[in-house]
């Protein structure tokens, strides 16, 4: 199966000031090996209309950012596709987030389990630094 992530630069003024950059890293853990390894990049392509719901799925519950915000501002967005082997149980997506309005850098971790060949979100959490984000990811992989 394929898994998509997004590399996003968003600048918006109305209704709310947003100035944010989000860059993903994607890790996988198989059923047999409980270690995390980087997912295999398949392609980088333009964001399409059909990606919009995936975008909302990744960012709306944790960052309260959705397509509506994306289309409200100037944005640059790439859809990054990864190959996910059949034996993968868990996908961990870590976004490095640079928020220029609050002047904060943080890390968003989205964790997914594979159900019926689809990635179903099981957790989302925000961390101040990458170490904390990776520690969380390592804990999640054991599920």
């Amino acid at each position, binding site marked *: 199966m394929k898994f998509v992530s997004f590399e996003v630069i968003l600048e918006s003024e109305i209704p709310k000031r947003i100035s944010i950059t989000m860059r993903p890293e994607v890790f996988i853990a198989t059923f047999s090996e409980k270690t995390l390894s980087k997912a295999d990049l398949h392609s980088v392509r333009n964001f399409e209309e059909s990606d919009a719901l995936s975008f*909302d799925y990744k960012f*709306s519950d944790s960052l*309260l950012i959705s*397509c509506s915000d994306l289309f409200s501002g100037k944005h640059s967005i790439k859809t990054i596709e990864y190959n996910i082997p059949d034996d993968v149980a868990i996908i961990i997506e870590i976004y490095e987030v640079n928020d220029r309005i609050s002047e904060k850098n943080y890390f968003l971790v989205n964790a997914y389990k594979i159900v019926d060949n689809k990635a179903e979100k099981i957790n989302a959490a925000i961390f101040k630094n990458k170490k904390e984000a990776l520690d969380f990811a390592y804990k999640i992989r054991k599920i």
Partner: protein
Amino acid sequence: MSAQREIYVDYVKLLDANAEEFDKIGKELRLKLLPKLHEDYEIALHEEPEIRAGEQLLARTLSSCPECFRLLKAIIFKKDGKVWIRKKCPEHGEIEEVYWGDYDLYMRFKNWQFDGKGVKNTQVSLTALCPYNCGLCPRHKSHTALLNLVATNRCDLNCWYCFFFAKRAGYVYEPTLEHIKYMLREARKLSPVPPKALQITGGEPLLRDDIVDIVKLAKQMGFVHVQVNTTGIKLAYNADLAIKLRAAGTNVIYMSFDGVTPYTNPKNHWETPYILDNLRKAHLGVVLVPTVIRGTNDHELWDIIRFGLENMDIVRGVNFQPISLTGRVPRSERTKLRITIPETLILIEKQSNGVISRYDWYPVPSVAPVSHFIEAITGKYQLTLTTHFACGAATYIFKDDDGSIIPISRFIQVDEFLRYTEEKAEELEKGRNKYLVMLEFLIKLRKFIDLRKAPKSLKEHNKIAKLLYNIFIKHDYHSLGQFHYNALFLGMMHFQDLYNHDVARVQRCDIHYVTPDGRLVPFCSFNVIPELYRDRTQRVYGMSIKDWETITKKKLKDQKYSRNIKKLIEGEPYRRYYSKFFDIDSIPLEDHIKASQRFGIPVIQ
């Protein structure tokens, strides 16, 4: 447009069902009742409308096509001193509409946007793009400030523009008490801030024999504020009902009131004096709710406020609602009727000769810093009004002992005070010592108040500073009652329609409807796309008119109201309330009758 899918609930069999049974059915139906891509709507986000010579792009957003509900890209731009929205449907062409009638006020209001924290336990998963995934979904940025419960779609009037009431809908929607219990329970589960304010609406909710029980139930379920949205006509004839509603816990009556003459307010002009007298006897306050329509009643805005001021012992506020043009309305008709918030504010300024200026008003989210500050001090989530800045405006005016009117912004530096409050809230969030911050806040507080210009009632013994101290430092909200003494709340809420529809506003909406399947749907989805939300859910949970008549042994047509205008005009209250507003004897009876009949309400002659 899609055909209604085959979803059916035999409501007659559910009349004795308990809340748990409604819970089970609601959870089964929620996903099925959501709008479906390709069946109910399409998406076309590939094309952005063009900006033309002489126009200035202000913002981008998403919007729906008024003809086919296709989700489209839209632009918000300045042209001729106004703010406009434009979208282009591949099938139905370009749609352009006034978004805000004054650019300068738009720019002033946009500085007050504060977004909320959303809802933690959303009721639907993400299956579609906004606004076809209501509600509430994880995208929603505001929690519920006011929950609406439709108690019935029956109505005793036949207003020409309304398609909502039972006879025209072809079914009766009237949830049982147990069903209402389920709906309110679902709403109260919301985290982190469950709704505390409920509006019981309709149809005409006072047609329900158990309306008092509904109010009691709402109070039992934790709603601190309960208001009933009504024309009030029933209350004109039934003082006892007003007393019972008050005793049950109703806080305020939210009453349609479109003007001070029979021509501008054919809905309840003749009954209003009797309604207010009965509400006064019951000690039950009222908020007057004028729907503002260009060329119809927009010349009476200041008179409506004056009417409120004349009856301040019972009128708590006036909440103007610039018209929302639902259904399909040709452009020429829209231009004729459309009025927006800033245009209404400017008219109030002109009609009041500057007593209330356009700058005395603030957008709804401007008060969010107060919640942020209290939240940071107490560590507890607070109700925070985080609508889109373009959704509404509000102010307070005070009547001084000499009769002069003083808007709050004339004696409190509102801008500076709110900015300072937000600044302090941010310091607290960053971990500054809360006692130090509170001390600084307290010292600074007096500097925002100009006591020389304050109304006497707030000036004496420095009452206003004490009041702010009680609210911000002691969190004693009971003292707010003193603030309302001799004060009239003025509000303005412009509900959207599909012509000026802005998804960014929908996502920030804090006025929600609870649907019979237990979802909370933002006002501007529920009523703006009624085919996919309001009508769809209510039809499924409705019963046939025949069934309703059999069960209740009543006839729907017998419930229709006919007014005896002659008797109402001849009554003493009529003259007492209106003689300051127009020459009562100058309007012949025939003109009164015509005004009522033209609106759709028959007259007993």
